[in-house]
């Protein structure tokens, strides 16, 4: 409103709204550059190999063993991660207790620590007296269980983050109602919260699986790289590269890309299916 004597008269008219195009185009260019980088890497890989190399890799006894071991260990790690991450995620989401901030930070350590350090720490842990006592019962270091443990150490932290977010999104009031209807805390969890968290559980499991598939650093240190014993797919890439067989290394890399994309598609389809209203 303009008053008498005002130097710069102001207008009540609606402002001229500029086009949204520059904003959207600049964002699309920045985002598109990254997508192009990823696609270019894959295209480069694909140009370096051929269906013949791919087939030859699949025919190799060692590589077939690595594929089987990778699928087995990743699946066991995913199950174990969700099993352990569910209580941690739930307790962190629902309760306040002394030291919660510290616990939260501890749970992030496997995410921020260099993978090699995790492998080294596991190796040292199982050389301590309690570690050796465990190994006298179940051989772990440089054996298959060490692969699962190395994958689990990292993947579980991601599963915890996913499940905590899942439980945060489930209103606590539903549990309150269940409590008044005669449930104990455990019953309320299993009857009300757990069924509702199943998509989050699936997302956490697939994330843990995909993360485990690409795990290499801790496995190299803690499990070694012995063919037909502790060789998983990332180890295969490393071993084939080290002997100069780049075509086979690339073929195995692409195999992992296909597996990872398949798993990530499952996450997208099942994990985000019921979150409408996110797009404009």
């Amino acid at each position, binding site marked *: 409103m303009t008053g008498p004597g005002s130097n710069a008269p102001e207008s009540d008219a609606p402002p001229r709204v500029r086009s949204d195009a520059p904003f959207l185009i600049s964002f699309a260019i920045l985002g598109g550059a990254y997508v192009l980088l990823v696609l270019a890497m894959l295209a480069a890989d694909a140009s370096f190999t051929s269906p013949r190399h791919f087939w030859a890799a699949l025919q190799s006894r060692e590589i077939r063993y690595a594929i089987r071991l990778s699928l087995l260990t990743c699946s066991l790690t995913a199950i174990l991660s969700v099993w352990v991450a569910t209580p941690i995620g739930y307790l962190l989401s629902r309760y306040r207790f002394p030291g919660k901030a510290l616990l939260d930070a501890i749970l992030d350590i496997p995410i921020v620590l260099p993978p090699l350090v995790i492998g080294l720490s596991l190796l040292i842990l199982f050389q301590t007296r309690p570690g050796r006592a465990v190994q006298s019962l179940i051989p772990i270091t440089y054996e298959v269980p060490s692969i699962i443990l190395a994958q689990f150490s990292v993947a579980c932290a991601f599963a915890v983050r996913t499940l905590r977010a899942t439980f945060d999104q489930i*209103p606590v*009031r*539903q549990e*309150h*109602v*269940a*409590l*008044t*209807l*005669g*449930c*104990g805390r455990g*019953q309320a969890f299993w*009857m*009300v919260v757990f*069924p*509702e968290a*199943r998509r989050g559980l699936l997302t956490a499991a697939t994330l843990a699986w995909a993360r485990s598939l690409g795990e290499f650093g801790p496995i190299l240190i803690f499990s070694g790289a012995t063919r037909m014993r502790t060789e998983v797919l990332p180890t295969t890439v490393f071993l084939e590269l080290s002997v100069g067989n780049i075509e086979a290394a690339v073929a195995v890399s692409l195999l992992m890309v296909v597996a990872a994309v398949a798993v990530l598609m499952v996450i997208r389809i099942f994990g985000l299916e019921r979150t409408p209203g996110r797009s404009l």
Partner: protein
Amino acid sequence: MISVDNVSVQAGSFALSGVTFSIPTGSHGILMGRTGSGKTTLLEAVCGLKPVTRGTIRLDGRDVTSLKPGGRGIGYVPQDGALFPSMTVAEHLGFALVVRRWKAAAIRERVQEVSALLGLGPLLARRPAGLSGGEAQRVALGRALACHPSVLCLDEPLSALDDETREEMCAVLETVRRRTGVTVLHVTHSRAEARRLGDCIFQLRDGVVGEAGLTTGAGARRDGVIGGDPFPPQPRPTA
């Protein structure tokens, strides 16, 4: 009968202390107060969802102060209904009975009874995502009533409904109370609701102790519970 005697509740930095009121058996008690006055905290304390630091809560003469929520024999309907998204309406109505390990046939029979009382018959196979606001609140009410509670705690159950649906729900609540004889503690900030439904009306002010903090009202009361008028500028209802 709901009897809250000198009760103190601590919820984070918020505290209620020395709160006393009672609602006679079969009456509809309304608890009013401004946003943030502690109405919901008090209701949750009656339900056993907030720990009581002092005082006694009795339901039908039984001291329930230290009992868990499930052992108090109450039905709880929160503001948003808090339905379970993965369950059908029939599963909601049977939930408390499954927890009590009723036989399947008895559960089916009771679900039919409750759905008939609340007009939920055509909705039994639906899930919460497909229900309107009024339907969702009727399901929440049915879920709370299925196991024959002696006390019903309602936390602003009508606040999110349009006028027409609210009127329908008021009628449903009256029918329920007439047919079941349940004692109701109903938290609301709506004077219209209080007048329409309340037998005894209480006002919670500033979360403060006893007489100063919780004055009892006489809005549309029909039972003689004492106290000052919580709606001074409004004329008394004539109905």
